[in-house]
């Protein structure tokens, strides 16, 4: 049986080794998915861009948080259309009707209602007229809002309005909606409310709820069923709407909830996988390569070179790790053009190599005396060849294990720096998400979905590599095999 095969057998027979490998495969698969589906400049283009998150609810827990609340949380719902369902004649005007449907099935009120218009094409100088109606489960249709869109005088036709910026109508905040609802409640439920009362109750409760009237008070309960937002558009027959979007604000969002910028935390956390792996791998590979190479040279060459390398590694080895790294990153990042992430990786590498150099050197000191090295010298192999073709393979398993061992500390160091606010603002990492959550008072506010998952993932990533390293231990250190 070959060396590789038996090493693999030993590795895979260990429980921690297996667990570590499975976790690593999981992380790699997720990372590949992220790299394939996210833009590379995701951090700048999406994560740090408020526009990307405009439709999302702010600091809501994940959809599965129902488990803790004991009540079905209203799920965030976004729907859109660009095709009229029919045309109707009202008072001699021809209206195109767009319909956006919504079903309320949870025991709660959607927190908001918002409609957005994009790319409205106008073919006449008179423009178009829009009416927004709201249909309740019982079929009642309430007019909430209306507006005109007119091309600016002198503009060329056809004119496209709302091309760059959408027309946003915050129905759950618009006063005309409040007035419309006031009238509806009076007609339908014989409930006399002042505009102030309507404002206090919240338009969303009136839109999606029913009053339970008792002798003393009025209680609002959610009205389950099918709703729709209907948009009537009157204008030139050729006028059209590029897209109409309706956002029914939820009490929960997606797999992981949102932060105070309405960002989908699931996305940020997923993006953290390739970033953590890349930081961990890259840092540990380079650190190990430098540490091992210097150790081999130092041990094999001896003399002055050895002396110099050993003195430097002794000095660097005795630096206090985190404080010096913070200092380095702080100094480098005063240049805003320098990618912060590289400063962090560079600092970890600069301080990380000496431990391995000292270890490898002592191992090379004994290997150097072995006969196969002498034989290699006899056949005429150069020093470089002896060091890297003959000595290195003897250390390779050990060096590999050291590399795996170093990976979690690279990931944890990046997280620690991010937590201290030294992270790269252009690249979301788990450490940064935690930092932002603390900054926003997530702990005090009980926004657990914002704090716990990134912390858990950091731990998971570190544990993955610790497991793998433990699985490698018996291979690298055969004395442990008997146990």
């Amino acid at each position, binding site marked *: 049986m*070959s*060396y590789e095969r038996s090493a693999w057998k030993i590795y895979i027979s260990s429980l921690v080794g297996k667990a570590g490998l499975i976790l690593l495969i999981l992380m790699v698969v997720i990372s590949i998915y992220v790299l394939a589906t996210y833009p590379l400049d995701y951090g700048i283009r999406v994560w740090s861009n408020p526009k990307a998150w405009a439709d999302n609810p702010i600091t809501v827990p994940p959809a599965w948080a129902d488990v803790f609340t004991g009540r079905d949380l209203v799920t965030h719902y976004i729907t859109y259309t660009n095709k009229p369902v029919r045309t109707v004649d009202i008072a001699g005007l021809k209206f195109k009707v767009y319909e956006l449907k919504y079903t309320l099935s949870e025991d709660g009120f959607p927190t908001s209602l918002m409609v957005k218009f994009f790319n409205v094409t106008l073919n006449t100088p008179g423009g178009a007229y829009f009416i927004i109606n709201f249909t309740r489960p019982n079929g009642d249709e309430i007019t909430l809002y209306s507006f005109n869109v007119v091309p600016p005088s002198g503009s060329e036709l056809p004119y496209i309005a709302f091309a760059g910026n959408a027309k946003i109508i915050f129905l759950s905040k618009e006063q005309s909606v409040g007035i419309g609802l006031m009238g509806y409640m009076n007609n339908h439920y014989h409930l006399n409310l002042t505009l102030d009362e309507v404002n206090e109750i919240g338009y969303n409760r009136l839109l999606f709820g029913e009053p339970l009237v008792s002798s003393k008070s009025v209680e609002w309960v959610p009205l389950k069923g099918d709703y729709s937002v209907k948009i009537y558009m009157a204008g030139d027959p050729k006028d059209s709407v590029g897209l109409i979007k309706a956002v029914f604000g939820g009490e929960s969002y997606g797999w992981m909830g949102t932060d105070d910028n309405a960002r989908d935390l699931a996305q940020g956390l997923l993006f953290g996988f390739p970033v953590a792996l890349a930081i961990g791998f890259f840092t540990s590979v380079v650190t190990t390569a430098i540490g091992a190479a210097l150790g081999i040279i130092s041990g094999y060459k001896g003399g002055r070179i050895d002396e110099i390398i050993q003195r430097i590694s002794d000095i660097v080895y005795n630096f206090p790790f985190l404080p010096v790294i913070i200092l380095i990153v702080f100094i480098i990042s005063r240049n805003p053009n320098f990618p912060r992430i590289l400063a962090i990786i560079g600092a970890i590498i600069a301080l990380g190599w000496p431990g391995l150099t000292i270890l490898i050197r002592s191992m090379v000191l004994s290997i150097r005396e*072995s*006969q*196969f090295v*002498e*034989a*290699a*010298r*006899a*056949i*005429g*192999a*150069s020093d470089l*060849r002896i060091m890297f*073709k*003959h000595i290195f*393979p*003897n250390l*390779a398993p050990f060096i590999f294990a050291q590399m795996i061992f170093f990976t979690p500390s690279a990931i944890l160091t990046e997280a620690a720096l991010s937590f201290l606010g030294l992270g790269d603002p252009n690249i979301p990492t788990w450490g940064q998400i935690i930092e932002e959550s603390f900054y926003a008072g997530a702990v005090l506010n009980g926004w657990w979905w914002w704090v716990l998952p990134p912390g858990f993932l950091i731990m998971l990533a570190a544990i993955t590599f610790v497991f793998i390293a433990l699985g490698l231990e018996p291979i690298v250190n055969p004395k442990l095999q008997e146990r």
Partner: protein
Amino acid sequence: MSSGNILEVKDLYLYYKTFKGIVQAVDGISFKIPKGTAMGLVGESGCGKSSTANAIMRLLPGNTYRYEGSIKLDGMELMDLTDDEFRSRIRWSEIAMIFQGAMNSLNPVLKVGFQVAEPLIVHLGMPKEEALERARDMFEKVGLAPAFLDRYPHELSGGMRQRVVIAMAMVMNPKLLILDEPTSALDVSIQAQIMNLLKQLKKEYNLSMIFITHDIALASDISDYLAVMYAGQIVEYGPIEEVLLNPQHPYSQKLLASIPRLRVDKEPEFLPGAPPGLINPPKGCRFANRCPSRMDICDKEDPEIIWLNKDHFVKCHLYKGG
């Protein structure tokens, strides 16, 4: 100007410096090896056999104190070459060596095929595939199946590993092969197989050899000449039959008498005493303290080399002037 000798060594010295003093491991030795012949180099362990080999290979430890003399390979003075020239032109391509215990010191994490091929890669810059192809041929020559190319040393038996080491030495097709105790770590039946392989290679390639051993019987199996070494010096050198049947130096005589023989009633003789240390050895003959024919002069003067005929010398005061 080739004299028909592949190697001529004259007054070769190799001293080491240690904390205790200077070790005179090779102390002015001379011998010659005609082309296509093998010279056995025998002597007790610690007498300087390996040092002699290393001196010829110019593989000098860091504590080398004195290294001089003349080594002519096919008439060319090797001592005039720089280290770089020696490494690129002579070592392994012209003179190869099987180190003492080499079979147990192959690199444990490299495939043996690669280790055999490596001299070709290093010296000729041969692409790896081609070198491995040549290693495969060499494997066949030393009686190893090509499948073993991809094995690691620990997957092979001792005999197979020794064949690997022989292939590694032969792969550059050297003119001279130095074998330092090539069979001493093997059991007897394997030892015989390896000896047969060496004899066959010697014949097939008209290979010249220095066969180092402490076992005269083994040396006589393959050698055409025999050099007897004692305390850093060669005390007798000559054609194998002459030295074996008619040893001249008292040490050679004692050494031969100490070999147990089949079919001969005589008890093997025991050689009393111990060889002198190589640090500050006695001034006169180094064998004097154990010599049965010791004379006064032996304690005072180092004996000269005395040629008994054109192929046979002895370093002993007994033969002076006569």
